[in-house]
Structure formats: structure tokens, C-alpha cells
């Protein structure tokens, strides 16, 4: 049951609840950094890493520090400060100890603080604790959910980088060039993701 629910949370986060294409979180990097495949992958890996790390820190802080002290209204301000601090810390640690990784991921880190997907994931996993009735939503579920959200972001970015490289050679009407055609192709990619709705529930029935 536990493994089943973990797998279902993981797959749902990638396919049916894709943070970019179904929940509209992290649209700016999705549109801005998806022109080239390698930058798209770099950004996604950095986002995934920070997402898991941020959830790992904010989940216990909310559950065991804010809620018992009746401070849950401070969620927004505490979480954004934790994320900003974490991103800064990761940047310093990477620079000092793993310079090669810093070279490839470091450039994306300043952008990540204001990426709404990160703050969104940390808040949505806490909402799930209250709304999931079928099984108890544990710390493990939250981490798996954050990992799935990051991988979903990666999948969307990589797919979209492919679509955009095809767009380069297309003949597009003048007014649609640039951002408009990018958004319209994003709409088609999002349409394809609608095909997954109900997929996870059918594949792994929990009840």
C-alpha cells in the first residue's frame, strides 16, 4: 500500500499534475530557457535539486514548528525566506566544493529563488496532507512528490526544447513570431498532457 501510494504520487506529479503544463507554475523559465536543449536540462536539474531540498526543509518546519505554535499564517514569509537562504547556501557550497557542478548549474540558481514552482511545490505538498483521504501523506510522500514535480518539469522542458528547435525553421506570420508562437506551441504540448488525465488512477488503483 505504501509503495503503491508512493509510485502513484510520483507518476501523478510527472504526468497528470505536471507543474508547468497543468498547474502553470514556473512558466517564466519554461518559456525563457527552453530554446536550447542543454540549457533546458541544466535549469531543470537545478530546479529539481532545489525543489527536493526546499521540501525536505520546509515540510518539517511547517508541521513541527509552525503548526504546534499556531503560526501557520506565517507560511508564505517563512517559506520564501527559507528558499532564498537555501539557494544562497547551495550556491556557496557548490562554488567551494564542486566547482565543476557550479559551472553547469550555478548560473540558474539566482533565478530559482523567484521561481514560483519551488514555492508552489512546498505549499502544495502541505495542502495534500489535509486533502488526501486514501492514505496517510507522510514526509516520504512529500519528498517523492517534490522529486516527481522536478522530473515533470524536466520532461516538459526537454519536450518543449524539441518543439522549439523545429519552430526555428518554420515560416511563421510576422505578428506571431517570437513569444506568441511559443505560447501556442506550449498550448499544443499542454493538450497532449491532457491525455494523461485519469491515467495514474487507472494504472494504480488505491481504493
Amino acid at each position, binding site marked *: 500500500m505504501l509503495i503503491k501510494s508512493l509510485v502513484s504520487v510520483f507518476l501523478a506529479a510527472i504526468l497528470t499534475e505536471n507543474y508547468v*503544463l*497543468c*498547474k*502553470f*507554475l*514556473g*512558466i*517564466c523559465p519554461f*518559456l*525563457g*530557457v527552453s*530554446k*536550447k536543449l542543454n*540549457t533546458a536540462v541544466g*535549469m531543470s536539474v537545478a530546479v529539481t535539486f532545489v525543489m527536493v531540498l526546499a521540501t525536505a526543509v520546509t515540510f518539517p518546519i511547517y508541521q513541527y514548528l509552525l503548526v504546534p505554535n499556531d503560526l501557520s*499564517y*506565517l*507560511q*508564505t*514569509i517563512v517559506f*520564501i*525566506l527559507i528558499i*532564498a537562504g537555501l539557494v544562497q547556501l547551495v550556491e556557496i557550497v557548490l562554488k567551494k566544493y564542486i566547482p565543476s557542478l557550479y559551472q553547469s548549474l*550555478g*548560473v*540558474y540558481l*539566482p*533565478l530559482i*529563488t*523567484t*521561481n*514560483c514552482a519551488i*514555492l*508552489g511545490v512546498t*505549499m*502544495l505538498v502541505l*495542502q495534500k496532507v489535509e486533502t488526501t483521504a486514501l492514505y496517510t501523506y507522510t514526509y516520504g510522500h512529500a519528498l517523492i512528490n517534490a522529486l516527481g514535480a522536478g522530473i515533470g518539469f524536466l520532461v516538459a522542458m526537454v519536450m518543449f526544447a524539441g518543439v522549439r528547435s523545429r519552430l526555428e525553421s518554420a515560416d511563421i506570420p*510576422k*505578428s*506571431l*513570431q*517570437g*513569444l*506568441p*508562437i*511559443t*505560447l*501556442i506551441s*506550449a*498550448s*499544443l504540448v*499542454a*493538450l497532449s*498532457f*491532457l491525455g494523461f488525465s485519469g491515467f495514474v488512477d487507472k494504472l494504480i488503483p488505491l481504493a
Partner: protein
Amino acid sequence: MAEKKTLMQEFTKGIIKENPVLCLVLGTCPTLAVTTSASNAIGMGVAATAVLICSNAVISMLRKVIPDKVRIPAYITIIAGFVTIVQMFVKAFAPAINNSLGIFLPLIVVNCIILGRAEMYASKNPVLPSILDGLGMGVGFTAALLCMGIIRELFGAGSIFGIQLLPVQILIFILPPGGFFVFGILIAIANKLNTKAGKKVVTSPCQGCPMSSTCKSFECANKENNSNSKEVADNVN
């Protein structure tokens, strides 16, 4: 008299000339996510405007106190404080809006329009113009959201503000793909009008991004963008 006119300009520029959504392409996430109905769009617009006015005012007051190096964290903390206040107000007085906006209400904190105005305008200008700038940008944001909300609700649910108008419902307009599509078409129209008027059009969301000065990632880092954002800041001054 001249003073009054410029103050008026600070207010009106955000509505059409520098519309944050359609011309600067900022705040795309809430624009796409909450515009499934016209009333949601207004709720989001008003909440963001309130935060924008308050944060612009406070940041402008503190602009000489905040050290340059820690300005972004300081701005985020101020913005987060106001978002929390607005969140509590909405929860208490408009619980229906709170439910339909959901996670996007606290996410106003990372809305780049607000950080963008703090960085580009409020940190350099006195309090009164900053408040008017915030109000103008907020009204522009609300207007763009409302425009999208009306289109999506009309086609997707056949109604506007819940009043049934069309007999047909094209559900896809309310679903995520419809959001991307309508936004793409609206930006295409804005670009068409801007090129006719001989103005520059935005080709990448990075151009207006408040983080573009600190961002070293591949597409944001090229010089053209930096000079563009400088231009915007100069125009504002």
C-alpha cells in the same frame, strides 16, 4: 501643473503603454492560471494591486536605508509581509475567491511584476510617484487579466461573470491549453499594435524580468537584454 501631469503619466503608463502583462510579459504564471473566469481574474488583480501599492510605498520609503547588496532579499521580505496581510483579508472577507485562487494567492510573493517594479521603479523614486506607479501597473495587470478571463469564460463556459450568454461551451478554453492559446493570441495582437505604432516588441519573457541583471543563464545574459532593461529604467526616470 507640469508636476501634476507627470504624476498622471506615472499612473497611466502601466495601463497601456507599459502594460506589465501584454507589453512587458511579466507575471505569466498567475495570468495563465487564474483567468478561467472573469471574477477570478478580478480577485487576483485586486489582490496583486493591493500588494503592489503597499510594497512600492514601503520600498520607496526605505530606499535609502536598504543596502544595495541585500536589496532583493529585503524586497522579498517586505512583499511577503504584505502578501500575508492580503491573504488574511481575502480569507476573512472573500472566502470564495480564496478557494478559487488557491495556491496563487500566496504565490503573489514571487510574482515578477511586484519585484520588477520594486527593483526598477520604487527603489529609485519618491513615495508618491511610486504609489501611483504601483496603482497604474496594478490596474494594467487587472485589465489584462480581466480581458483574458472574459475571453476564456465566454468561450469555455458560455458565460461572463456567471451570466449565461452563449449556448455552446468549448471546454478546452478553460483547461490549461486554452490558457496558453488565448495568451499567445493576445500577445500577438499587442505585438501587432506595437509594431504599427513603431515600438519595440518583447520577444522573450527574460527581457522584462527583474532578475535579468543578476541572471547569468544563457539567454538572459546577452548584452541586448541588459541594455533593454536599462532603457526601460531610463525611460521610467
